[in-house]
Each structure stands twice: as structure tokens, then as C-alpha cells.
């Protein structure tokens, strides 16, 4: 797999620098794959994009009460001219809940002020693995009874 999942703290903080709680680089068009780290959580987003991240955080996986953001399924959110584009993946290609999940995510994004339409860009690279789950997601999975 290209790149793989980087270790935490890809950018080594300098000696006088406080380590940032969530070390990841937000994806922007034109960035190379290697500039991106996962999971993406929207922590650096602002304005309408931050609102979209917050809205889709409420969408849960139909099999487990865990946010799709904390599962690491959302790779990026961009909003331009009222159109939100949500780049995301699924845990596996045969996921039977695909339409339900993408529909829920589209509707959540379209409920955000400043968004008229939401489009899903479904991608498979990088491959989703358990490493994509955030700390909060791991906690939620444990509480649900999934050992991780």
C-alpha cells in the first residue's frame, strides 16, 4: 500500500515546541498523498467546512454506535460555491450499508448553512484499516464491546 498509515506525530516537534494534540495535515487539492495523514478529523477546518465536519460527526455506522468520523471513514471535506465534496471510504468493498451511509452523510452535510449540495467522492486508497480509528473511536468501540 502506498504510504501506509503514518505513525503518530509525523512532524517531530522541536524541543521548545508543544506537541500538537492532533498531528495531521489537512488535505487540499494539489497536495501529494504523502502530505496527508490519517485519520482526518477536521480539527483544522474552519468556517463552513468545520460545520460540515461537525454535522457528519453525528452520523454513525449502522452496525456500531460510532461516528463515521471517529471510524476514520472520512478522508476530507471541501466546500466550494455551496457544494460540499466529502471524500470518504468504506471498511470493505462489499459493505451492504453503503447507500445508507453515503445518504446519511450527504443529508447531514446538506443541512449545514452555506451548503446547497453535497457530493460523495468514494475512494479506496489509502486502504481503511483499524489504524484509521481515532482514540475516541477506539473508546466507543470498546464501550460497545469490540476489542480493539
Amino acid at each position, binding site marked *: *500500500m*502506498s504510504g501506509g498509515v503514518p505513525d503518530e506525530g509525523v512532524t517531530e516537534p522541536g524541543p521548545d515546541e508543544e506537541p500538537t494534540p492532533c498531528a495531521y495535515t489537512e488535505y487540499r487539492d494539489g497536495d501529494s*498523498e504523502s502530505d496527508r495523514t490519517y485519520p482526518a478529523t477536521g480539527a483544522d477546518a474552519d468556517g463552513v467546512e468545520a460545520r460540515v465536519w461537525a454535522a457528519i460527526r453525528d452520523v454513525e455506522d449502522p452496525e456500531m454506535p460510532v461516528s463515521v468520523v471517529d471510524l476514520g471513514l472520512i478522508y476530507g471535506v471541501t466546500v466550494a460555491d455551496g457544494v460540499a465534496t466529502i471524500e470518504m471510504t468504506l471498511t*470493505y*468493498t*462489499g*459493505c*451492504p450499508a453503503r447507500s445508507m451511509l453515503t445518504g446519511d452523510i450527504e443529508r447531514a452535510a446538506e443541512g449545514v448553512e452555506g451548503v446547497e449540495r453535497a457530493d460523495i467522492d*468514494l*475512494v*479506496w*486508497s*489509502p*486502504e*481503511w484499516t483499524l489504524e484509521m480509528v481515532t482514540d475516541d473511536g477506539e473508546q466507543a468501540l470498546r464501550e460497545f464491546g469490540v476489542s480493539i
Partner: protein
Amino acid sequence: MGDLRSLADLSDEERTAAEALLFRLADDEFVLAERYTEWQVIAPTLESDLALSNIAQDELGHARVWYDALNRIGHTEQSLVWERDPGSFRHSTLVELPFEEGDWADAIVRSYLYDVAEDLRLDAVAESGVHELVDPIEKLRSEEEYHLQHAQQWLERLCDDADGLDHVQDATDRLFEHALTLWVPGPEAAAIEEYGLRGDSLASMRRQWLDTVGSFLESLGVTMPLDPEDDPADHRPAAVGRDGSHTDHWPRLHDDLTETYRELDRSDVRRLRGESA
């Protein structure tokens, strides 16, 4: 991965070649999954029911991935699956054959021959330089890995027993010429190679596939249906799938799998409920 181009950025000629490649990939996975599901509740153990159902689900997922790519260049699910003329499907005849009744060895041999080929084919497609073809490869490969393990372990188990070995030999003899159609070029083969959409030639992949499946099957006591010096082209069945020619089994299977779609089309649900009155 280098710079990838999307399907939309290709020239018309390149896109036509990529489209043909996608049809081979998608149709193989889709039809194989359809056949696997026939075993869903009749496999020899509950574990096997689950394993083969899961493999079928994966293959349907992979078909969906490749059909999604075709959706991006103007196709729809209706036109790709439910309303497509069965004669325009491009899958290998290996995946359309019905299973010999109750012959678990048939399902296992077929899965093995297919999954070794799939592994080689994904390697080649990874070199295509086209985003929609390259993006899913690692995901598919990680899902494919256990399919091959499943088939190999079952083959070892079956061939450990005299009756089991006979069944495996019969299935190999019956299926092998159809498995060779996995490597038969379609009408766009020259263009696919010219535009670099396949990192390795069909002839080279067929050679590697023959080496791999031949040495494994022979190690289990199975006699290969063709000698190393044979020309595989001499072992082709009358219908090869890749050019739209199929066995008589395919139109029947297509008719079965599209039946519900057609039934729904015939009944106007709204009128039945009186909602449009």
C-alpha cells in the same frame, strides 16, 4: 504511484480501451459472485456456507468498484447489469458455468484457478496509470488474500483423500479450458497494451499462472490437463466469453439474475396501491 490520470482525462481511444478492461474485470467478478451464491446454504459445513457467502460478497463488492468506474464515464447500473444484452458481457466462461451438482471440488478448483489469476491481474492493472483503476487495488488485494488461502487449504484437504482427489481431478479436467479463457484477448487487447493499461501482457500472465497452478496442483497429485509444451490456444473452448461468445449457460443465468428487476418493471406499484388514481 506516480502521477495518475483519471478516466475523464484520457483520449477517446484510451478511454475506450480502459472501458474494455473494466468490463472484463467487473463482469468476471459479478458473474463469479452470482455463481458462488448458489452454494450459500448448501456448502458442506456451516463454516463453508459462511466462508463462500463472504467471498461472494467480496466479489460483488469488487464488481461494484469496477462498475462504479464505468459509471463515471457515462454508464448506469441499469445499462451495466440489469438491461445489458447478455451477449455484451465480457466475462470468462469459467465464471458462468453451473457447478456440477453437489460437487464441492468444482467450487474450490474454480475459486483457486480464478484467484491465482486475479492476483496476477491486479498487479498488472496497478501499472495502468489510471486513477480509477489503481485506487482500489490495495483494498481489493487485501480482501482477495484469504480467498486464495481458502481455496488452497480446501484443495489440500480434498486431495488428501482418494475420493476427494478424484473429484478435484474431474473438476480440473472440466474447468481448465474455461479457466484459460481468463487470458484470451478481447477486441481491445491491442489498444489496452498500446496505452500501457496492463503492466504485463496476457501471454506473460498466462505463463506465470500456468506455472503457479501447475506446480501446486501437481504437488497435490493432480494431473494437469495440458502438457508444458502444449499451446494453450489449442485448449480453448468454443466460446471464450471475452468476445461476447458464451456457453448456453450464460443467457439462462442472466435471465435468472435479472428476473426480479424485470418483474418489478412490469408492475406499476403506484397504480397497484391506487396512489396515481
